[in-house]
């Protein structure tokens, strides 16, 4: 999207280079936040001594004030264009483009090992077909510098530095996240505090927790050590066209991008809630027709409000309808995309039967060759896998022997959930829905899985 010859994805971060204007970068859709990469090294050596570790970290992050002045001027150029014109900085895209190209060039000439690259973080993807690996669990929290700390050191800060290196009144905040071996010795809080103190001392800045001028992100784990500053005031995931957020916009966009929406396509979200998936899809692929259904009045009102705010009334239709009985003709949609609600635990037979009913209607309205993209919890995906793969005993299924390990455990789960009586969950196969990929995503506190299917034949064949 933002043309880049080098893209490196690792542990929830995507590193890439771009000579693009800010307006273009703001349009990136699958990343939560976008940072300008200042430093990227291999993991810092871990010693048992906390003092020694802190010194290591400080010497990695902290530089001469001159370095930080240069960073501030880069940051000012970036944020100067954003603040006044609102969130959407598309004006003067060509002017901005030239500027950031210059910056990219000068920055790379300037420093020894540092190159200015853009970092997109917090979206984890797994190649299609592989069983997913849960995204890296961050064992620690973000850390803000305590404002009390800064007040202890004002004299030291101003005493040391010549006027040229000072930015009086300039405020900052260090956000530190660490995991892995380092986290066993030090907490992010301690590291953040130490870095904050050192920066106050070195550059004469002051700390501000709530609304700093500059935010410095430091991420340390077993894979790399990274320092960056945010490119925009607001995270990429904050969409100016969405009034009330439901599902994470990044995940919604990712789901829509898997659905293969082409011009003239009919796309349905039969449990649309606030309509986030439809909004992301309609914004990115406006030449299609979008339908959303939900049983809740309040959700539909929220969705309606979102659609009007986004100016997408002529693209998205809403219906008050139940996904178990869709008032829509069979084989009428090219794609069905949905976030299956999973606040409930699947304990009763009734709950366990919800998924087959839902899948049945979704499958019915989907045309042959159409795509089905679902967001499922860990619990739900086991049920779904059991429904969309032929049972192991089917002689026609030559792949049953090669089926991955989850299959036997699915049987175990399904039969126990059907204990309450009524039809077995496995008695209904959806052989016409062929799985085409599973992608692990993080929803913050929980993980979820995007499942993609294709309808390869009419039901019952």
């Amino acid at each position, binding site marked *: 999207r933002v043309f880049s010859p080098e893209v490196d994805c690792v542990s929830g971060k995507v590193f890439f280079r771009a000579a693009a204007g800010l307006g273009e970068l703001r349009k990136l859709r699958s990343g939560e936040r976008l940072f300008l990469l200042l430093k990227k090294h291999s993991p810092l050596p871990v010693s048992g001594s906390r003092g020694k570790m802190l010194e290591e970290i400080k010497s990695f992050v902290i530089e001469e004030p001159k370095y930080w002045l240069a960073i501030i001027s880069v940051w000012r150029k970036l944020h100067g264009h954003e603040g006044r014109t609102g969130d959407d900085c598309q004006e003067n895209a060509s002017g901005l483009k030239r500027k950031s190209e210059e910056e990219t060039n000068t920055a790379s000439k300037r420093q020894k090992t540092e190159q200015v690259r853009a970092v997109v973080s917090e979206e984890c993807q797994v190649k299609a077909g592989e069983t997913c690996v849960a995204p890296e669990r961050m064992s620690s929290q973000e850390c803000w510098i305590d404002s009390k700390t800064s007040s202890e050191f004002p004299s030291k800060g101003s005493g040391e530095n010549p006027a040229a290196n000072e930015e009086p009144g300039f405020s900052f905040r260090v956000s530190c996240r660490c995991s892995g071996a380092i986290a066993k010795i030090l907490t992010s809080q301690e590291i953040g505090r130490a870095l904050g103190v050192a920066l106050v001392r070195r550059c004469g800045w002051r700390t501000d927790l709530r609304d700093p001028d500059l935010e410095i992100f430091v991420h340390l784990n077993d894979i790399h050590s990274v320092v960056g500053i945010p490119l925009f005031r607001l995270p990429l995931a904050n969409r100016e066209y969405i009034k009330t957020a439901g599902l994470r916009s990044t995940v919604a966009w990712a789901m829509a991008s898997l659905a293969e929406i082409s011009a003239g396509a009919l796309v349905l979200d039969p449990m649309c809630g606030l309509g986030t998936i439809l909004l992301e899809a309609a914004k990115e692929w406006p030449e299609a027709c979008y339908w959303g*259904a939900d*049983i809740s009045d309040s959700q*539909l*009102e929220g969705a*309606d409000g979102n659609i009007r705010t986004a100016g997408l*009334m*002529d693209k998205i239709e*809403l*219906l*008050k*309808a*139940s996904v178990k*009985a869709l*008032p829509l003709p069979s084989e009428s949609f090219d794609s069905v995309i949905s976030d299956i609600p999973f606040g409930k635990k699947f304990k009763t037979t009734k709950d366990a039967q919800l998924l087959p009913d839902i899948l049945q209607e979704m499958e019915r309205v989907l045309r042959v060759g159409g795509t089905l993209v679902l967001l499922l919890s860990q619990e739900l995906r086991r049920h779904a896998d059991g429904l969309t793969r032929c049972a192991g005993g089917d002689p026609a299924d030559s792949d049953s022997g090669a089926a991955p390990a989850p299959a036997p455990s699915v049987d175990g789960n399904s039969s126990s959930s059907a204990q309450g009586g009524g039809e077995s969950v496995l008695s209904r196969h959806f052989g016409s829905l062929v799985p085409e990929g599973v992608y692990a995503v993080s929803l913050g506190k929980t993980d979820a899985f995007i499942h993609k299917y294709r309808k390869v034949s009419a039901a019952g064949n």
Partner: protein
Amino acid sequence: KLGHPSELPPEPVPNYEGGEEFLRRLHHVLLEVEVLEGALQCPDSGRRFPISKGVPNMLLTEDEA
């Protein structure tokens, strides 16, 4: 039946594709009119589905489902 100025004939007339006035009214009704309050009626059963704030309520009752 929209109770709307641009009324349409009950059936398309032969060669309706050539009738500019008809096409314009049809386009208007299909693409430019949004029903905020009203109803959709099933042509077979006659069952009415109310429309409120632009959203038709297509939920079936316990008996209908």
